[in-house]
């Protein structure tokens, strides 16, 4: 066998061939990863927009940062079983881990009546067919697409000079998004209940219930309180009054909500959470949520998970609503980031959630 030199001389064209393929792959990779398109809407750009508004708070959720863990159970009654084969919707009881929170990425913000409140739930039937949801107490979502969400965040970020959103910037956002006016007005003029316990939380996004025969039905749902609803009026002059009230309520008795599923009517827009659905849509009472215990995020079981709305059981599928995709992507990124950071003592401490008389604060 004639031995060749290790690197024989070859034409420039051949060398170009050697270099071209890896270079093309590398460029394609950079493009796919968004490095060549800095304006692409990404997990990072969404979290950056949230941070521009709320600041940097290591260890906390990048949105809905102030919250408290709860547990209980959900009891399906089978009424929605015809529309969805999900095991949680058959009759029977499944354990629940949940979280109540205030919208916004500031973990130590003061409670106030008009701040958006949320409920997040993880329904855990045996067999791992979990249903996770994060639902808010507003009638519709303020935006229609993830891009609008990011633009609205950036428009409402505080002006460094005043520490407040620049009204001109918000105005400019509104001016170029006239289709969001109705949603904005509906959110501003929504009736406010007194606290977490008597509030109604809504999926806002649409989903598809999938029946045994494969039939898909577009739905939204809400958790409607069984507690009597009282309007928000004078409240304790307390930074955490909403959470304290919830903790007191849960120590006194369990709290219950009815899962009301709304079936889309003919004229309802499925894939746009900024548009409400018709008042006369068919409603199904699908079961009852009962919450019994409350725990600080510091030790609670809601901290080490994310309530990704696309963690769905067999029998429930995402709709074409574009917000859902962005939520799933951003929640995972937020969850990874905060899980790698040390969680400081949250606003709602274990002392605050401890049963009255049980633990008298920290022993000194």
């Amino acid at each position: 066998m004639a031995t060749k030199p290790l690197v024989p001389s070859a034409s420039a064209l051949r060398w170009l061939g050697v270099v071209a393929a890896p270079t093309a792959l590398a460029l394609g990779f950079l493009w796919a990863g968004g490095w060549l398109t800095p304006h692409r809407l990404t997990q990072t750009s969404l979290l950056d927009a949230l941070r521009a508004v709320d600041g940097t708070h290591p260890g906390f959720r990048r949105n809905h940062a102030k919250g408290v863990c709860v547990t209980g159970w959900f009891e399906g009654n089978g009424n929605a079983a015809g529309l969805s084969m999900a095991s949680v919707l058959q009759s029977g009881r499944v354990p629940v881990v949940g979280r109540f929170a205030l919208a916004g990425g500031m973990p130590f913000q003061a409670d106030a009546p008009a701040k958006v409140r949320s409920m997040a739930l993880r329904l855990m039937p045996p067999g791992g067919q979990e249903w996770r949801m994060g639902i808010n107490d507003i009638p519709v979502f303020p935006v229609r697409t993830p891009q609008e969400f990011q633009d609205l965040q950036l428009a409402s970020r505080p002006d460094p000079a005043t520490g407040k959103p620049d009204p001109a910037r918000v105005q400019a956002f509104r001016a170029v998004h006239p289709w969001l006016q109705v949603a904005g007005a509906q959110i501003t003029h929504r009736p406010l209940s007194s606290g977490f316990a008597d509030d109604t939380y809504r999926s806002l996004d649409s989903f598809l219930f999938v029946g045994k025969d494969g039939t898909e039905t577009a739905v939204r749902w809400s958790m409607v309180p069984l507690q009597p609803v009282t309007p928000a009026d004078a409240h304790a002059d307390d930074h955490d009054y909403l959470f304290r009230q919830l903790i007191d309520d849960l120590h006194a008795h369990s709290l219950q909500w009815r899962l009301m599923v709304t079936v889309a009517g003919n004229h309802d827009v499925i894939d746009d959470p900024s548009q409400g659905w018709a008042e006369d849509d068919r409603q199904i009472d699908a079961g009852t949520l009962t919450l019994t215990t409350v725990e600080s995020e510091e030790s609670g079981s809601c901290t080490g998970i994310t309530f990704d709305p696309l963690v769905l059981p067999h029998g429930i599928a995402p709709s074409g609503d574009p917000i859902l995709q962005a939520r799933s992507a951003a929640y995972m990124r937020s969850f990874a980031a905060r899980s790698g950071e040390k969680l400081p003592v949250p606003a709602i401490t274990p002392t605050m959630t401890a049963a009255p008389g049980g633990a008298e604060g920290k022993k000194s």
Partner: protein
Amino acid sequence: MINAKSFSLPSRILHWLMAVMILIMLFIGVFMASTAGPNYHRLVTLHRPLGIAILVLALVRLANRLRSPPPALPEEFPPIMKFGAKASHVLLYALMIAMPFVGWGMLSAGGYPIPLWGQSVLLPPILPHDPALWAALRSAHTVLAFLLFGMVLLHVGAALFHGLIREDAVLRSMTWQAKADRE
């Protein structure tokens, strides 16, 4: 003893099938991890079974490799070059097997259900639920993916160097032309 000049047919099929799958997987991965667009969920849903398929094939390939050893490298190669070739192949194997395990393990540690196909078939968790571990493995999945991609670039460059510059038997040993060389 006479070494075969080519990789056996199963080795070549596995190599090219997996080359395509792994490249697709790397591109899907970096794309989905930097998009909040309408295909995010669909891509993640594809990424999981494709990754598990790569794991299964990699294990089959490892067994196949132990059973039918590869052709020897050209004798005139200096030892350092032979070592580089061997080491890079070992690293490629290690990453083909590690990547899917890290992906599967991180979702286990993150407390996510792990649907394999559709929503009805779930993979069992392979690690305990541990958020700090989830965060670490999620970063490791990125770092190892970049390492794998870098190795693939070097590997492709080296293969083309053999094929276009040296015109030796190395590239042919993995392609179909090699049949002609067989005794």
